[in-house]
């Protein structure tokens, strides 16, 4: 997919679900064209470093081991700490601290793992919002919801889709009818572009006799940078979802999608009943594969022929998104 901006945007990006990184395990990752290693210490802290040992370049994520705060290289046993420094060389009395591996800032929240990516290597410049603390008028608690992983989560790997494409879904209400077979057209009610892009889209009440402008369902959307967004539904349904897209290289991305479904009062099971679970999966989790069937073959149009109602919110979203593209695209 050709896009007029970099595949190396700045911000917080999803790299997996927390449960995919058990204590004491080491895993290779690949994002932003870089090889990474993730490892969780016995204390439960998840660390992400550049993958290749600075000694002779072995990949720490293939057969490396966790040792205390360090990941130990499978080639010569050198230990690298969570700050990226060499902490020991097993056959010498001093570590070699002449060079450091890049240590990627990690944020784990609501069963997900995020890393901060800045193409120039700078530290995080803002905090990632939390799916439970947003929006202000609907604070909630994780305990009020069933778990999202693994039953109500999905990951698509190496799809030919730039994060800007999935981001623009936030301004797009009309596609629900055509892509997702929604019977009622939602309306974009408000939007605001600041550090984050916030929007409210409503599905009008179905009854024609109801003359109020009441909405049956409102989708509160929060795009947390170009990396992804949260949606909190208000009205007839109260579920929450997160959808993030993370570039793997300059052509493909991994996509992560979770749904948190409100817990039945008094139910302390981790997941909804099988019948409800199946319905959520079919009606809501499935929608991403419908979108992907469009996005996989889409091209990016810099100057779209807009419908009247789309022009302003799309324009605002595209203008807002530019702040996260700090480097030039690869020619």
């Amino acid at each position, binding site marked *: 997919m050709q896009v007029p901006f970099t595949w190396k945007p700045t911000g917080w990006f999803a790299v997996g679900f927390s449960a995919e990184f058990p204590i004491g395990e080491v895993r290779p990752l690949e994002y932003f064209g870089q090889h990474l290693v993730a490892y969780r210490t016995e204390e439960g802290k998840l660390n992400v470093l550049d993958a*290749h040992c*600075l000694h*002779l*370049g*072995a990949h720490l994520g*293939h057969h490396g081991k966790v040792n205390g705060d360090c990941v130990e290289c499978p*080639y010569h046993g050198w230990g690298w700490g969570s700050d990226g420094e060499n902490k020991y060389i097993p056959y010498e009395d001093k570590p070699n601290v002449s060079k450091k591996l890049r240590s990627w800032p990690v944020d784990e929240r609501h069963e997900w793992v995020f890393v901060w990516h800045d193409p120039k290597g700078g530290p995080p410049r803002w905090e990632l919002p939390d799916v439970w603390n947003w929006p202000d008028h609907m604070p909630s608690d994780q305990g009020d919801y069933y778990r999202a992983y693994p039953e109500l989560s999905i990951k698509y790997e190496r799809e030919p889709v730039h994060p800007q494409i999935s981001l623009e879904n936030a301004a797009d209400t009309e596609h629900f009818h055509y892509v997702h077979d929604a019977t009622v057209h939602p309306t974009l009610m408000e939007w605001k572009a600041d550090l984050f892009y916030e929007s409210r889209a409503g599905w009008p009440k179905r009854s024609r006799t109801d003359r109020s402008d009441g909405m049956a369902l409102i989708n509160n959307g929060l795009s947390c940078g170009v990396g992804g967004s949260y949606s909190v539904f208000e009205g007839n349904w109260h579920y929450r979802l997160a959808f993030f897209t993370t570039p793997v290289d300059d052509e493909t991305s991994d996509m992560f999608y979770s749904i948190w479904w409100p817990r039945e009062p008094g139910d302390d099971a981790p997941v909804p009943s099988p019948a409800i679970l199946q319905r959520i999966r079919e009606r809501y989790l499935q929608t991403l594969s419908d979108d992907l069937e469009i996005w996989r073959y889409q091209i990016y149009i810099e100057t779209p022929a807009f419908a009247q109602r789309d022009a302003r919110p799309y324009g605002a979203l595209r203008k807002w998104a530019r702040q996260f593209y700090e480097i030039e695209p690869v020619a």
Partner: protein
Amino acid sequence: VPDDIRERVVKQYIQTLWDDLEIWRHQVYVETPSFAKQDAKPYGALRKWAKQFYEIPPEA
């Protein structure tokens, strides 16, 4: 070769190459490694010696 000897040779010697390969497949070449003290001289000498066999420049 008797089976028991063959099995031992494979396990003790041939297996070592597969172990190495598991490293090499994912390795990158580091031009200026952080060496351990004991490594710096022999590695340096080996890399310098090997240069004579690379007579043409790499393709870009």
